[in-house]
């Protein structure tokens, strides 16, 4: 979230699209109700199903799964056509006037530079024109035919309300009603909050779904504002934290990247990270990359990271592909190229697409290790559970370990929520039986592997032998020791910005004190400030809320720098005055930035310095046009899901997202609408969380059984009554479920044809207290978002028929 949960109360319009927060984030959704009751806010819900969120909406509009970009680009067109922009904001704070290189274009659904063979673009023309002064050329009049504003107008011109109706199945009147409401927030004193979740990310163009709404929000001047923002409602309690800390194939902590093979030396690596400002005087904060990187290497490798060895640059692995994401990993595993998997608190057998492929892949591994507080399906992928897991254990040669771990009730530490708040928690009971914490298990494994390398030698043992391990009890590092290391500390006397000396061995106050000369260590720069000399900031429990802004600045700690609303400099006009008194968040008091939040800006940088509010961007402004920074285009374009009931009306020859990677076998397993006529989508239930709560008795009683949800019309067509068993299948698998026949899903009229939607909930499997069932992944295709490889779980094709109940599973 650029903003935070309680901030939603300040919104005047709330759009929930690509999410269902009333059911998936119920206690956060209270703030939507608060906004409706206390701030007279209007709630808009755009969703294929009439969800519980929709049930309290002022306007509900149905949409065919996977067509959000067509809808949102049409909203952008509406705003441009009706001149409903926050002009002063757009002109000052976005790249609307930047001129794009000659040669850039978009035709037949493709941007310039497409290579069909590689399913990739040469993005050379997706850049700004650079002037003789070395800076991007800008036309403040916005008249230049190649300026971003003109290109945007051109790009969205085809997205008419009529096209929305034909593609999305959303009635034109509803669409226009929503546009009118959204447009009311273009005035400086009204804001709109966008709430989204996996309903936007689970698509082969998930990142561009978000981009499409970001463009809308920038045109309306709603970023950095109270009650505004792009608010990603994360799906789990700490995937925000795990991503912040870089637990991904290609990341280092704090959104730094792992080197690629072409970055042979540290100098090569740093050459792409200098982030020279693209306009005069801009902050371009990533210019400090070297300080964050060197401090990370010092935290990781301690004395072994020296100036002479380029801070142990060669200890880091280098990638030969963009990333070894899980779709790639299980493709390799299917070919027997993955020996083993170590799986912490994760149930990939049920969570990754194409379960049959997952079973095959796990069966080809030599070993898997599952560390979990619950008995997962993954740890039992080799067990015969009848129709629910039909395998022959004797034919599976995989060695399996299941290690019992503690859960939240038994451990101490911090989690990062959607608001980027790091909240510390404490243990209330002992671990059950022999369960151990993940920290202890990982530390023990490390120490044992290290001992083996010391004794036997082996492949490049240096980073294992030299990793910094300063913990009092080696096989049980304490959470507070780790938190201190994440925050960072001085290794020698350093001077802060005021010139005062900070002695060696002290916790740093924040990332501004980090250095690139080896005198500071910091595990994750964006978390720097979480555990300072003043103590554990994440454990703070003062809920005082000055000005009733909902910020509670002394409750826990938010990254970065305890800042609660990102880009908050943009809550003021270029002169430093709040855009509106009722939206007052920060202001320039003549000598510094003051207000309810920590300024996302140089605290004493005066407004007349013309420094843009988007300080991480070398432009200093927000990007309506994202240059070559995304693989599938500088503007979002409508692409159908890889399996869709309709050809792409804007570019009939293109299947799916042209820049998404898809492996041959997975491509061969895609279905066609003639065989699989129904649009399927997956979702969560109010009573369950992922595959966990089926192990909790009360939740298993509340929602005891797997089902699929279909419309009354489809039920009638198929002769299915409520509670009948149905079979649902795709080219990748077949499942049985009871049918819930509902008014919550209705057929959508798309280009003159009725499209039936089949809803398939998560949560069920063959372990736990609920009745055995399936997950959507038995049916879903293996293809991911072009930028981040999030699987397309929210839009694919199935067929459906009435059937007999499943056989009783083997006990």
């Amino acid at each position, binding site marked *: 979230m650029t903003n935070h949960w*309680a901030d939603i109360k300040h919104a005047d319009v709330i759009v929930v699209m690509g999410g269902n927060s009333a059911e998936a984030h119920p*206690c956060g959704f*209270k703030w939507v109700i608060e906004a409706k009751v206390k701030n007279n806010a209007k709630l808009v819900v755009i969703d294929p199903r009439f969800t519980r969120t929709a049930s309290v909406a002022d306007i509900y509009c149905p949409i065919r799964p996977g067509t959000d970009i067509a809808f949102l680009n049409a909203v952008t067109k509406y705003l441009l056509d009706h001149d409903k922009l926050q002009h002063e904001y757009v002109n000052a704070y976005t790249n609307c006037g930047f001129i794009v290189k000659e040669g850039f274009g978009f035709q037949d659904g493709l941007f310039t530079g497409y290579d069909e063979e590689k399913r990739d673009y040469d993005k050379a023309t997706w850049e700004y024109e650079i002037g003789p002064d070395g800076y991007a050329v800008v036309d403040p009049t916005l008249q230049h035919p190649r300026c971003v504003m003109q290109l945007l107008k051109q790009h969205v011109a085809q997205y008419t309300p009529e096209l929305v109706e034909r593609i999305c199945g959303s009635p034109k009147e509803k669409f226009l009603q929503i546009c009118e409401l959204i447009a009311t927030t273009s005035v400086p004193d009204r804001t709109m909050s966008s709430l989204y979740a996996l309903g936007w990310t689970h698509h082969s163009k998930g990142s561009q779904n978000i981009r499409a709404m970001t463009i809308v929000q920038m045109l309306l001047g709603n970023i950095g504002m109270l009650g505004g923002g792009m608010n990603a*409602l994360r799906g*789990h*309690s*700490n*995937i925000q934290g*795990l991503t*912040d*800390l870089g*637990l*991904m194939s290609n990341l280092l902590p704090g959104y730094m990247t792992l080197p690629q*093979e072409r970055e042979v030396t540290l100098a090569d690596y740093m050459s792409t990270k200098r982030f020279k400002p693209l306009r005069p005087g801009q902050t371009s904060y990533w210019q400090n990359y070297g300080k964050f990187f060197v401090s990370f290497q010092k935290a990781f490798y301690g004395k072994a990271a020296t100036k002479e060895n380029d801070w142990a640059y*060669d*200890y880091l*692995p280098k*990638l030969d592909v963009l*990333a*070894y994401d899980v779709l790639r990993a299980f493709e390799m595993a299917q070919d027997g190229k993955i*020996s*083993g*998997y*170590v799986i*912490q*608190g994760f149930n990939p057998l049920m969570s990754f697409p194409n379960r049959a492929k997952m079973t095959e892949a796990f069966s080809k591994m030599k070993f898997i290790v599952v560390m979990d507080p619950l*008995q997962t399906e993954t740890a039992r992928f*080799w067990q015969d559970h009848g129709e629910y897991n039909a395998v022959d*254990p004797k034919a*599976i*040669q995989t060695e399996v*370990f*299941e*290690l019992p*771990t503690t*859960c939240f*009730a038994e*451990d101490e*530490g911090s*989690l*990062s*929520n959607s608001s980027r708040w*790091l909240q510390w928690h404490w243990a*209330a*009971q*002992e671990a059950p039986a022999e369960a151990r914490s993940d920290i202890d298990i990982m*530390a023990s494994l490390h120490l044992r*592997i290290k001992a083996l390398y010391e004794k036997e030698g082996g*492949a490049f043992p240096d980073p*294992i032998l030299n*990793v910094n391990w300063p913990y009092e009890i080696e096989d049980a*590092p304490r959470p507070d020791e*780790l938190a201190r290391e994440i925050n960072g500390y001085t290794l020698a006397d350093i001077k802060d910005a005021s010139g005062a000396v900070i002695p060696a061995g002290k916790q740093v106050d924040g990332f501004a004190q980090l250095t690139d000369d080896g005198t500071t260590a910091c595990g994750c720069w964006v978390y720097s400030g979480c555990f300072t000399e003043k103590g554990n900031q994440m454990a703070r*429990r003062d809920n005082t809320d000055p000005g009733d802004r909902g910020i509670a600045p002394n409750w826990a700690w938010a990254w970065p720098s305890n800042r609660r609303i990102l880009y908050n400099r943009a809550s003021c006009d270029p002169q430093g005055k709040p855009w509106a008194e009722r939206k007052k968040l920060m202001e320039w008091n003549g000598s510094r930035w003051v207000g309810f939040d920590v300024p996302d800006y140089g605290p004493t940088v005066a407004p007349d310095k013309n420094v843009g509010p988007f300080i991480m961007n070398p432009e200093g402004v927000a990007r309506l046009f994202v240059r070559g920074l995304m693989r599938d285009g500088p503007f979002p374009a409508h692409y159908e899901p890889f399996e869709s009931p309709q050809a792409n009306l804007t570019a009939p020859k293109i299947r799916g997202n042209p820049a998404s990677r898809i492996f041959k076998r997975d491509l061969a397993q895609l279905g066609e609408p003639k065989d699989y006529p129904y649009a399927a989508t997956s979702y969560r239930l109010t009573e*369950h969380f992922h595959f966990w*709560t089926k*192990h909790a008795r009360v939740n298993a009683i509340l929602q005891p059984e797997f089902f699929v949800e279909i419309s009354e019309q489809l039920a009638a067509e198929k002769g299915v009554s409520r509670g009948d068993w149905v079979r649902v299948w795709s080219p990748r698998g077949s499942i049985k479920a009871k049918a819930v026949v509902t008014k919550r899903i209705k057929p959508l009229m798309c280009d003159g044809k009725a499209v039936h939607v089949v809803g398939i909930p998560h949560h069920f499997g063959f372990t736990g207290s609920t009745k055995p069932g399936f997950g959507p992944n038995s049916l879903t295709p293996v293809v*991911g978002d072009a930028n*981040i490889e999030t*699987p397309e779980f929210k839009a694919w094709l199935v067929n459906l028929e009435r059937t007999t109940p499943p056989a009783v599973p083997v006990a």
Partner: protein
Amino acid sequence: MTMQMSRRTLMKGIGAGVAVSSLGSLGFAALEPAMAASVRAYKLAQTRETRNTCPYCSVACGVIMYSLGDKSKNARASVLHIEGDPDHPVNRGTLCPKGAGLLDFVHSETRTKYPMHRAPGSTEMKRVSWDFALDRIARLLKDDRDKNFIAKSGDVTVNRWVSTGFLGASATTNETAYLTYKVVRSMGAVTFDNQARV
């Protein structure tokens, strides 16, 4: 480090005070001791309160866990009640249908309790010792790393290990995640992901 608030104890004190004074004012002073003796002690009054956050979705509602046992060496603490934390600025004491069932998650019958091992081709899992499990896993990891580690690609030092994958959890603490990162990355592993996408 543990922060203990004693809201329950405070409330109990206030409640008892009110009851005593109103009974007294009605002239039933003699009944007070009998009355007090007949009222069963409020169950939560004997518990220890611990602040935590719900491990499910990303709202991260504050919760208060009530456990028996004072954490002394011979008393095994066990959580007997969990409710929303009224001081928390987001959930303000409430919990949703998922979070309201947390106690049953903590005490689920299908929690893992002992290290288990399934040998290749076997139809069952057997209980093993931690030492057996950790030694065996360390051996499997080292052997695979030694066998498949890629030190060079042409002349370029790449030092990567692709052939064993690692998946980070979605509800472990940041501190766990950081240590996991350290252990995994220091081995050069690149087949590494978390649950952010699913």
